[in-house]
Structures are given as C-alpha cells and as structure tokens.
C-alpha cells in the first residue's frame, strides 16, 4: 500500500518545462526578402517562415537573446537584427548578458544562420547602415535600464569584417550636455583626403561627425562636434533631421551635411572641406566642417539637397508659409517659391521622371486638410521662373505617404491618403489612378515592383492590385489580418503571408502571383511548435 502511495507521490514531483507557462505575449512580425520573422521574446526564439510551392509553409527556429528591446531589418531585407537587454539581475550562470543577435541568409533557397554578440551593458536603439556594413547600438531616448548608464556610448558592429576585427567596437562620444538621439550613415563622400564614409550623430544639442573608415584604428580618431546655436541667444538648438550630399562629382571639397532644427527657422549647412594648412597642432581628422546658418523665415518640416539650374541648393519646406526655400550653401542666399499648399514632405523623383541633367524634380505631399494632394516642383526651372516651377496634380485628398515602387516600375508611386482612397501615380505621364477602399487601408508593396497589397487591419479584407493594369483582385480571409508580407519563394514564385497575430499565431499563405483563397493554406498555433 505504501508502494502504491509512493508511486503516486513520485508522479506528482515532475513538472513540465516552464516555457509552456509563458504566454505568447506581443510577438511581432518583420518582413524579409524571402521570409517573415516572428520574434517570440517569451521563449527567446525567432521563428522564420518561408513559403514553398502549393502554399506550404516552412518553419525554422533560431535562438535570440533574452528580453528583446528592438528589432530592425537591413535595407536589402536579408538580415534581421535583434537587440536584447539580457537578464537583469543575473542570478545564475544561465542568465544572459545583453546581446545583439544577427540573423541572415544568402538567398531564398538557403537556411538562415544566426550569430550573437554579447554586450557589456543593455542598450535600446539600433541604427542600420543602408549599405549593409555597419550596425550601431546606442541608448537613445529610452528610460534607463540600469542603475548607471553611459548615454553617449555607441557600440559598432562591422558586418564585413573578418576576425579579429569582427568584434564590437565601443565608442563614447564626448558630450556637451546632449545624448545621441539619431544616427545617420552617409554614402561614400569624396573628401579632400579621399573617399570616406561618415556617421552623423544628432544629440539633443549638437551634431557630431564620426569617421567610419577609421573606426578600427588602434588610435581612434575623435568625432567632430558641431555645437548648434542661432547666434542670437546662448540657447542651444535641437537638430530635427539631417541630409547628406556628395556635391559635384568633379569636386572633392563640396560634400555637405544639411541640418534642420526643431522649433527654429534656421537651417544649418556643414561643408566638409580640407583642414586649414596653418592649423597647429594638426587635428586628428583630415577634414573640417565649415558652418553656415541660414534663416528661411519659418519652421522647416523637410529638407533635401537639390540640383537646380543655378547649382546645388538646400531645399527647405516651410509649411507655415506655404512655401519652399532654396538656400545657397556657399552664400546663404535664399530664394522663396510659393507652393499651392502647405506641403510638409518632399521626395526627389528626378530619375523616375526621366529628365536628369535639367535639375531635380521633387514630389511634394503631406499637406494636411488640403485638396492639393501632391505637386511637382521642377527645380531646373526655378531660377527666374519660380511661379511656373510647381504643378499640382489633380488629387483632391491629402496624401500622407508616398511609397516608391522598385524596378521594373520605378516610374510609379503609390500614394497613401488619410481617407479611403489610394492612388497609383505615374510620374512619366503624370496620371494618378484612384483605388477606393471600404474604410482605412494599409498598403504593402511587393519587392518585385509588380503589386501593391491593400488590407484592413483587424478584418479579413485583402486585395491584390496589379501595378501594370491597376486591376484589383479582392480576397476575404477567414481570420482578421494583422499584417501582410510579399516574399520570394525558392522556386522563383512569390507568396503573400497574411499574419494573424492572435492566439498562438496564425498565417494564411496565398499565391502572390495568382492569388486565390481557394488555393490558400491556413496555419495556426505556430508559436506552439518547437518548444
């Protein structure tokens, strides 16, 4: 009898792994070129979903660090970056340190691999190099995660380096009271000392420029800090965004950085020139910025370096004055151009329009409450004929965002509005085809430039719109949609993965090239697998 009772007692002592007690939580999905990544922080995993023929969904699980803070994808969508804070406090050897996990693959037919880099301190923000060489982790504007934190510390990861240079590089920027808020990687600039890539760091108070090509030096080159002030008061100005331009390809002394400021009517232009020969001792950096501060007469919402028939200018949109201002970076002379509406954003479409060499063409949009949805600003005709340089298109709703279509339809733009209509804009023939939706719709472009998917989050309504014919194919899914991703398949086809982020996480796989719910396949409980 005692044996019987003991057998029961033994059975009561065994409990299942605690992972089954972890809820699904707020698992997020991220689109890659040939997969959808679902980061399940509760179980410290990333689920990579790829599609095969006949809408078969393949799954691959990889481990990520504990307590995921932020996730980013690379510009080419082949790499996923997962920044984790680790276990704090650490109570055993099994508790993890902060880390950056990099998940990548070499093509739709290859499996994903991961590599983890431990960090000494938890960080909360990531900046991704558009050229795919660098990743920078920094504290950013988040709340403190530890008792003591260095907000000016940036950790760099060189993704192209071989051992031993593949280890993280710690840099602490000198501070004049500000902390890094935004990092921008420049393209290759022709500087007086040769081609160079730079990192522009915007803090609360100033802008710092760091030489990326000398980060591996045994003796690090210090950053160049440009303190921002309007000259009238001692109050420091806060940068609100930067743009970088290499200038004339024939010159190596006109690379520039443009800075717009928060709540100020000035724009700052930094021209990267040679170090003065008479400067002693010689500075550690082989370039030196020359600063120009220009008042454009209103709060600036967006800036861009543009080519006009009068040379390179810094274009600034001043929605409060319904104007655009062109600033000569060398002389600070400004030219105002009246705009038909208070546009807040501009996007250069010169290459898409097909008129290079005659000045840039900018697409203006984002005028809230306006009936002049978008306008073209032809900068080649600005000088002397400012009034004929802006042409509004016949879109009577406010456009909130412009999606650039990749090749082979790069002359097309998809315009999102705040209403229930979106447009397919042809930049060559200047036509805008409206597509009306039942309620607000989210738009996702396919990477092959052939389709745009429209869906209503929280419902099963979905549609595929061909960008060639502007023909919609309506689809209704059985579950509410959280997000959709158009991904490449290993067999050359394409699939749409509609994510249903409720419960254990579901996905509906639809053929991307011939969408039909009758051939789609429904998957459920994906985050229950592999535990």
């Amino acid at each position, binding site marked *: 009898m005692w044996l019987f009772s003991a057998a029961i007692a033994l059975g*009561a002592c065994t409990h299942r792994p605690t992972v089954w007690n972890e809820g699904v939580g707020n698992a997020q999905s991220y689109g890659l070129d040939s997969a959808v990544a679902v980061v399940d922080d509760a179980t410290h995993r990333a689920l990579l979903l790829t599609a095969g023929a006949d809408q078969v969904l393949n799954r691959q699980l990889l481990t990520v660090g504990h307590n995921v803070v932020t996730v980013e994808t690379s510009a080419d969508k082949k790499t996923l970056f997962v920044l984790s804070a680790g276990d704090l406090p650490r109570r055993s050897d099994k508790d993890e340190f902060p880390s950056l996990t990099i998940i990548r693959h070499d093509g739709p037919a290859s499996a994903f691999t991961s590599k983890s880099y431990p960090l000494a301190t938890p960080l909360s923000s990531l900046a991704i190099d558009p050229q795919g060489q660098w990743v920078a982790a920094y504290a950013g504007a988040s709340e403190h995660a530890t008792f003591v934190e260095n907000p000016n510390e940036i950790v760099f990861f060189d993704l192209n380096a071989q051992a031993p240079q593949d280890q993280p590089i710690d840099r602490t920027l000198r501070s004049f009271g500000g902390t890094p808020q935004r990092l921008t990687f420049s393209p290759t600039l022709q500087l007086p000392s040769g081609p160079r890539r730079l990192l522009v760091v915007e803090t609360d108070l100033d802008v710092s420029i760091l030489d990326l090509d000398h980060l591996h030096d045994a003796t690090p080159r210090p950053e160049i800090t440009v303190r921002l002030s309007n000259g009238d008061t001692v109050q420091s100005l806060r940068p609100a965004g930067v743009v970088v331009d290499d200038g004339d390809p024939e010159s190596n002394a006109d690379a520039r950085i443009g800075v717009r400021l928060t709540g100020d009517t000035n724009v700052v232009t930094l021209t990267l020139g040679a170090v003065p020969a008479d400067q002693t001792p010689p500075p550690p950096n082989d370039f030196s910025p020359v600063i120009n501060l220009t008042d454009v007469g209103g709060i600036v919402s967006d800036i861009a370096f543009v080519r006009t028939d009068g040379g390179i200018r810094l274009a600034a949109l001043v929605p409060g004055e319904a104007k655009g201002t062109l600033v000569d970076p060398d002389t600070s002379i400004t030219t105002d151009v009246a705009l038909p509406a208070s546009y807040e954003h501009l996007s250069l479409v010169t290459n898409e329009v097909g008129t290079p060499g005659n000045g840039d063409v900018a697409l203006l949009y984002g005028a809230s409450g306006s009936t002049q949805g978008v306008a073209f600003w032809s900068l080649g005709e600005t000088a002397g004929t400012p009034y004929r340089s802006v042409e509004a298109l016949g879109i009577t709703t406010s456009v909130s965002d412009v999606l650039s279509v990749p090749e082979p339809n790069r002359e097309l733009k998809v315009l999102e509005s705040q209403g229930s209509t979106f447009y397919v804009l042809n930049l060559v023939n200047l036509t805008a085809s409206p597509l009306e939706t039942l309620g607000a719709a989210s738009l996702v472009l396919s990477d092959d430039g052939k389709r745009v998917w429209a869906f209503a989050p929280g419902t099963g309504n979905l549609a595929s719109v061909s960008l060639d014919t502007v023909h919609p194919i309506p689809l209704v899914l059985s*579950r509410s949609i959280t997000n959709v991703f158009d991904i490449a398949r290993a067999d050359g086809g394409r699939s749409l993965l509609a994510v249903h982020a409720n419960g254990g996480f579901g996905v509906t796989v639809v053929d991307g090239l011939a969408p039909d719910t009758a051939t789609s396949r*429904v998957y459920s409980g994906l985050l229950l697998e592999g535990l």
Partner: protein
Amino acid sequence: MKNLVRASITLALVSSSAIAFAQEKQPDPTPPQSTWGTGQQALPPMPADDSADAEKPADTEPAPATKEPKKSEPAIRYVPASHPYESTAPAPEQEEGVPPLQSAHDTRESFWKVSAGVRGGRIDDPGYDPFADNSQLWQFSFAATRTLLTAGRFSFAAGLGWDGGVHSDTTARGFSSGIAVHRLNAPLEGRFHAATWLYGFARVAPGAVYRKAWIEDPSSPTAELDSSAWAFAADFSLGASFLAGPQGKPDKHVPRFWFTPEIGYAWSGSTELTLAPKGAADDPQPTGTTNLGELALRGPFARMSVDLSF
C-alpha cells in the same frame, strides 16, 4: 489531484483493515471436512511405563480394557496422493474453520472476476507537456477476467479491460488544453495462490491506446486545434489480490470481494502530434498542421481496484 491521492491512501487503509478482518477467525457454517483421507486407523497405545506408576493417582475404577489392535489391520495412514497438502501436521496457513484450497473446483481459485478501480500513471514524454502541467495521468479502470487453467497453486486467467481518463485542467502558453486517453487491452494473468485469501499475479495486457489532444487556440479558424491517434500498447504489472470475504463455500459460486493493488509499466507506441483546426477534415479550405513532435504514453503506473468474483 489531491482528492485522488487522499482517496488512494484511504483505500489502502481500508484494504489493510479488510485484510485483517478477513484473517480473523470466521465462524464456519459448515462442519469441517476431514482432509486426511478415509480409512484412518487409530494408533496403538504407548507401552506402559513402570516409573510412572508411582505417580499415577490411585484409580477408583479398574482401567478399561484396551482393545488390542488386530494383527490383521496394520496401523497405516492413508493420504490421497493427489492432494497438494500432504502433511501429517495441519498446514501452518490453514485457519481453523476455513477450508483450504482444494482443487480446480475451488471458487476461491477459479472464478469470474470483474474489477473497478483507479489507475495513476506517470508520463515523462515531452510530448505530454502541452496537455498536462505535471507527469500524472489518472484513469478509471474496468476489467473482467475468467480463470482458464488451474494447476495446483497456480492458475491462469484472461479477460478484457478498459482504462480511461482525461487531463484537462491545463494551459499551453495560456490557451486551455487537454488530453483524453483510453486503453483497451486483454489482460493475461498468471496467479500464485499463496492462501485462500491471497494470490499474487503477474500480468501482461496487450492492447491499444487511443488519445485525443486539443488546444483552444484562437488563431485556429475554429478556435481549437486537435489531434487524435491510435497506437499499440501493452501493460506489464505485478500485484496481489486480497480476499475480503466471504472465505467459505469454496465449492459454490458466491460473490466474493477482493482488493487488488498493482504496479507496473505501461508501454505504447509513439504517435505524431500534428494538430489541425477542429473540423478541418470537413473544410474544403486547405489547412496546414501544427507540429508538436511525437507522444508516447509510456511510464510506470499503479492501480488499486475493488473486485467482485463469482
């Protein structure tokens, strides 16, 4: 769960008491039957001892004449050769008033038996984790057996059995889940009757196990994922059966109550845990499956049953 543990301990205590009760001297309604065979002759008297005469009290009456045994009748004791209990002394386990085991016709050895009990098992397979927060699997047990062969103290019985239970008070990542397990088997039992009130047994019970598992996952179009499968199974166990009573009337088929504790190992084949939305087979929409690996419902078990034989 706790209630089942208490019930098991109570059953153990009750069965101990019942066994103690069963071993008490029982009034035997039937007159004892001699098992020493027929034709038993009285032994000749011991020779007289002169030394003892002085200690003998004076007889007031003359001693009765002893009958001299007939020379033609030797003092022999006949013991039937076929009886297992061939001894000149009473068997030590034999209680007064309780007829010992006789033959194949003893209904304490050869009988029909139906059993009802509780079975507690332990499943350590990782495939069990989504459906149970511990390793336990509790089931009700029902069985019916019949003694087919007897040979002295040994007998062999066979029958049919069913164990069924559900483990449903669980969640898998926050979603309600559960599993129902049903075992159908044919127990084959070899018994050793150590006494009229006790026999030990070794049992092999081949059969099949059916399991249905489910998770109430909102991501499923029908809000539930389930999976069901059959597999070959077999139990291997040892146990003992204690006769609570009545112990008499061995030649009559009277209802008798037994308590039977048993421990053993349950083996079953492994099955794929591929879950699909409930009702997916009837849905023309192609559906993918959720793969949770494999599940083998194997592990030690213990059972306590109350039996009725007749």
